[in-house]
C-alpha cells in the first residue's frame, strides 16, 4: 500500500502543528536566517572590497543572484509538488499546499529579482528597464505565477483547485529553462556568468552566504506558510461543523414557550419550527 494513501498529509499536518521538536527546528531556522542576513549586510556593505571593474555596484551582486535563485527554486518546488499531486500514487493535499505556499514566496522573490535587476540595469546600462531576454522572461514568469495565484484564489472544492493549480504551475514552470538558457541563446546585454568572471575571495564567500541566507529564509517562510494553510483549513472545517450543528440544534428547539405556551419567534422558521427556506418546506414527512 502506498504510504500516501495512509494519511501522509495528515501525518505532516500533525508534525507541523504538534511536534515540539519541529517547532523548535522552525524557530532555530528563523533565527539562523535572520543572523545570516544581518551578517550578509555587514559583509556586503563594509567588509568586502569594491570590484575593480564594477566598483561599489558589485555589492548588489550579493543580493540579486541569491534572490533570483530562491525565486526559481520556489517555482521549481511548486512545479514538482504539482506533479506529485497529479501523479495518482503520490496524490495528497499536502503537495498542493506546499505548491501554493512556495508559489507565493516565489512571486515575492521574483519581484525582488526584477527590482534588484532594474537597479543594476540603471547603474550599468543607464536605464531602469531594457528589453533584455532575461529581464523580460523573468517578468513573464512573475505574471504567469500571479495568474497561478489568481487561479488558486478562486473558490473551489479542494481537490479541483489542487488539480487546476498543479497543471497551471507545471505549464508556467516550462518558462524557467527558457530564462536559464536565454542568456546564451539570445546574446543580449545581460551579464553572462558573474560567478566566474568577477567574484573571488571574500566576495565569493559573501555571495555564498547570500545564497545560504536566502535559501534558509525561503524554507522558514515555506514552513510558516504551510502551517497557516493547515490552520486555515481547520478553521473552515470547524466553522462549517459549527454552522451545521447550530442548524441541527435549531431544528430540535421547542417552538413554543413552555411557561405560557406563546410561540417563540425564530428567524427562518414557521410556527411549527419547519425551515421556510428548505426545498422540502410544505411537504409531508415521509
Amino acid at each position: 500500500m502506498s504510504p500516501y494513501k495512509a494519511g501522509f498529509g495528515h501525518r505532516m499536518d500533525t508534525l507541523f502543528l504538534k511536534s515540539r521538536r519541529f517547532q523548535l527546528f522552525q524557530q532555530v531556522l528563523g533565527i539562523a536566517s535572520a543572523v545570516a542576513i544581518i551578517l550578509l549586510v555587514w559583509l556586503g556593505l563594509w567588509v568586502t572590497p569594491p570590484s575593480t571593474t564594477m566598483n561599489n555596484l558589485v555589492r548588489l551582486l550579493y543580493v540579486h543572484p541569491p534572490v533570483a535563485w530562491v525565486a526559481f527554486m520556489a517555482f521549481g518546488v511548486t512545479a514538482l509538488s504539482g506533479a506529485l499531486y497529479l501523479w495518482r500514487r503520490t496524490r495528497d493535499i499536502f503537495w498542493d499546499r506546499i505548491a501554493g505556499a512556495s508559489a507565493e514566496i516565489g512571486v515575492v522573490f521574483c519581484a525582488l529579482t526584477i527590482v534588484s535587476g532594474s537597479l543594476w540595469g540603471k547603474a550599468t546600462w543607464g536605464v531602469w528597464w531594457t528589453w533584455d531576454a532575461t529581464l523580460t522572461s523573468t517578468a513573464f514568469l512573475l505574471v504567469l505565477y500571479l495568474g497561478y495565484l489568481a487561479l488558486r484564489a478562486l473558490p473551489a472544492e479542494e481537490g479541483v483547485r489542487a488539480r487546476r493549480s498543479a497543471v497551471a504551475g507545471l505549464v508556467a514552470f516550462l518558462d524557467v529553462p527558457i530564462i536559464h538558457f536565454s542568456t546564451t541563446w539570445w546574446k543580449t546585454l545581460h551579464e553572462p556568468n558573474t560567478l566566474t568572471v568577477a567574484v573571488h575571495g571574500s566576495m565569493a564567500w559573501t555571495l555564498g552566504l547570500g545564497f545560504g541566507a536566502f535559501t534558509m529564509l525561503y524554507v522558514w517562510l515555506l514552513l510558516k506558510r504551510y502551517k497557516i494553510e493547515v490552520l486555515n483549513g481547520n478553521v473552515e472545517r470547524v466553522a462549517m461543523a459549527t454552522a451545521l450543528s447550530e442548524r441541527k440544534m435549531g431544528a430540535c428547539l421547542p417552538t413554543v414557550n413552555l411557561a405560557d405556551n406563546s410561540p417563540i419567534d425564530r428567524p427562518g422558521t414557521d410556527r411549527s419550527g419547519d425551515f421556510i427556506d428548505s426545498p422540502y418546506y410544505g411537504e409531508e414527512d415521509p
Partner: protein
Amino acid sequence: MWRAGRWLAMWRDTWLVMGKDLKIELRSKILINQVVPFALLVLLLFGFALGPGNQLLITATPGLYWLAVLFAALLAVQRSFAIEAVDGFGDGFRLSGLDPAGIFLGKVTAVTIQLLVLEVILSLGVVIFYGSQLANNLWFVIIIAIVTPIGLSAVGIIYGLTVADLKINQTLFPMLLFGVAAPVLIAATKAFSAAIAGHIDQGVPWLDLLCIFDAVYLALGIGLFAPLLEDL
C-alpha cells in the same frame, strides 16, 4: 505502456473531435463572421496607432501580425470551449469513452486549422494595409506560420480546459495565456522578421525554439488532459 491499439484509438478520437469542432465552426461561421473581422480590425487599429507612414508599419509588421494572431487565438480557444459549455460537456466527454489525449489533440488541431485560415487572411491584410512584402523566402514564412499556431493552440487548450467552468474565465484566461504564449510571440516575430529581411540563418534558431515549444506543450497536454477532465 501504450499499445498500438490505443495509439490508433487516440488518432481516431483526434480525427473525430477535430471533425466535430470544425463542423460546428463551419455551421456557426463564428470564425468568418467574428474572429476574422476582429483580427482585421486590430490590424487597422495598429495602423491608426502608428500613423500613416508606411515605413514604420512595414518595420513593425511581424510583431503586429503575430499580436493580431495571438488575440484571435484567444477568441478561437474560448470559442472551442464555448461550443461545449452547454449540457455538461465534462460528463459528455467522460461518457463518450474518447481518449483524453485524442480529445486534446483534436481540439488543438481544430483551433490550429482555424488559426491557419486566419493567418492567410491576415497576411493579405498586412500586404494590403501596410504594404509589407511577404513573398521573400515564402517557404520559410509558411513553415513559421504552420509551426506557431500549434504551440499557441496547445497552450490555449490546456489553459482553456483549466478555467473552462469558472465564471470569471473571461478575465483569467487571457492573463494565463498571454503570459505563457509571450515567448512564442517573440520567437515567431523574430523568425518572421528574419524571413522577410532575407536572413534565414538568423531565423532558424527561433524556428527551433518554436518547435521545442510545440513539442513540450503538446506532450504536456497529452499527459495532463485526463486529470483535468476529471474536474468537469
